[in-house]
């Protein structure tokens, strides 16, 4: 009778680990009795039980990551308590890989929705519909900054951040570089592009070269002005600061991914009297740039810059779609906040990514 009670107080279940690439079974267990030590035992259909792992009283689950998909495994738990040794019932499960990560369903829905809006407005723009995009002061000041540097007879400095070409912000920075370089070529101004990654250097060299060709001034393109400094974060900051102090650029652009070096760069640039325009999607660095720069492209404005500058209807269409996505998020936030205030968690539960 006591033994039956002990078995009943130890429950165990086994199931295929969800949303994985297979080869994994999860065991859930709970014991109402305190135990000194515990062991997870496993066997397949024609073998003997083997010890797989030790468990302690704070554990409630264990994952077996060494299973063969399609093979049935049997599990039991053996606990050593002060009353003696108790064994759970035997449970079985078969592991298999999944075709879809169910925990990310809401994310897929959101991606489809936002992409749907973007594609719809791209189609609208292709059809010739006029799309209004609000003026962004920082982007409109790009030409003004190049012009001012030219008037002062000083070079322009363009920094694409400290990350490599696998960072979307670096790519966005490179697209803005093209526009700035083209303007610089038209005004016959010198543009300096120090980089902290070799791949960024080669991409920037190609971009600036193309910009000079586009402006009809390949003769004044100097590849030595786009150069590699160092991969080291503060070494790069020191190098850029040195260039700012020595060359005294008339305009400095910070467009890309920045970390702790952002204020070191922006404050040094400010001390040289240069007009400074920054653009980044790093929320923690935005306050520094807002403080030290004349204009700052905040997050989405930075990604919108190339579309805004190109005035290409297809690109502007994507911005319009993005705005509609924002409207959906805004509506969800308002509705979700009101519902949560009344203790209704349905929106929160739906939006939760597991």
């Amino acid at each position: 009778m006591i033994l039956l009670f002990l078995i009943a107080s130890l429950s165990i279940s086994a199931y295929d680990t969800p949303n994985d690439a297979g080869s994994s079974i999860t065991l859930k267990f709970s014991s109402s009795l305190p135990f000194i030590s515990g062991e997870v035992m496993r066997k397949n259909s024609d073998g003997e039980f083997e010890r797989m792992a030790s468990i302690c009283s704070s554990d409630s689950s264990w994952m077996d990551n060494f299973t063969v998909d399609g093979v049935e495994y049997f599990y039991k738990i053996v606990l050593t308590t002060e009353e003696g040794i108790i064994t759970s019932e035997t449970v079985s499960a078969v592991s298999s890989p999944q075709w879809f990560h169910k925990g990310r369903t809401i994310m897929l829905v959101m991606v489809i929705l936002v992409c749907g809006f973007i594609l719809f407005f791209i189609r609208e723009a292709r059809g010739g519909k006029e799309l209004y995009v609000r003026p962004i002061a920082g982007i409109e000041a790009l030409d003004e900054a190049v012009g001012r540097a030219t008037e002062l007879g000083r070079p322009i400095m363009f920094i694409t951040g400290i990350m490599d070409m696998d960072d979307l912000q670096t790519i966005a920075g490179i697209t803005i570089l093209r526009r700035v370089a083209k303007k610089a070529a038209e005004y016959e101004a010198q543009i300096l592009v120090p980089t902290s990654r070799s791949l960024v250097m080669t991409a920037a060299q190609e971009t600036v070269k193309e910009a000079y060709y586009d402006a009809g001034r390949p003769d004044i393109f100097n590849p030595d002005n786009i150069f590699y400094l160092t991969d080291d974060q503060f070494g790069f900051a020191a190098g850029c600061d040195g260039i700012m102090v020595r060359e005294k650029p008339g305009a400095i652009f910070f467009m890309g991914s920045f970390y702790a070096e952002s204020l070191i760069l922006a404050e040094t640039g400010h001390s040289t009297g240069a007009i400074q325009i920054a653009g980044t999607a790093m929320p923690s660095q935005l306050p520094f740039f807002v403080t030290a720069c004349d204009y700052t492209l905040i997050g989405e404005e930075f990604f919108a810059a190339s579309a805004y500058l190109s005035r290409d209807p297809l690109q502007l269409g994507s911005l319009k779609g993005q705005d509609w996505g924002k409207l959906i998020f805004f509506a969800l936030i308002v509705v979700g906040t009101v519902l949560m205030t009344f203790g209704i968690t349905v929106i929160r539960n739906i939006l939760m990514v597991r």
Partner: protein
Amino acid sequence: MKRQIPLLITFIVGIVMVVQYFIPRQPFAGLFDTFNQWFLIIAVFALILGLMNLVRLHVQKLRRMKGGWGYSIVLLCGLVGTIFTGALWGIGTGSPFNYIFVNIQQPMGATMFALLAFFIASASFRAFRARNLDATLLLVAAVLVMIGRVTIGALIWNKLPHIAEWIMLYPNLAGQRAIMIGIALGTVSYSLRVILGIERTYLGGE
């Protein structure tokens, strides 16, 4: 062809990377890491290009005796010296390479980082000047947060730490989250433009 092939590669890789996020099974599982490893291999080879560029520019500077050529000597000696010590005696603890890293590279990096304290002070001084209503609000919020987060704040008024916490948790966090949502949507929109080949400036085209 020079433009079409990179655009096609971008399209295929972009779509595959989106799909792999939602499909946990093979061959999609682990694709993200595999692509990252490929990128690292390319980046390591590209480092040679960067080094060559660096050496060429500084040798040119030396030849032409441009202003600050002395620094180029320091750079080239440092570069060659570090490479040789690493190649000859390894990079383990106690090696000359490790000595250079711990006693020269790290202190210099820390020195640059330490400058941040002074730059924050000078930037704050400018930002907190009460020129208009916005700047005044910024000043008031900053003073409350700064005083509320040090011990003396609670001694002045025991509610100051709570006010500082409230500013950080509600107005500040709400603003940060709004920016984050904008960034996420901007990222989706920009990625889609790159994947679909609408944005191709990074390839050297309009």
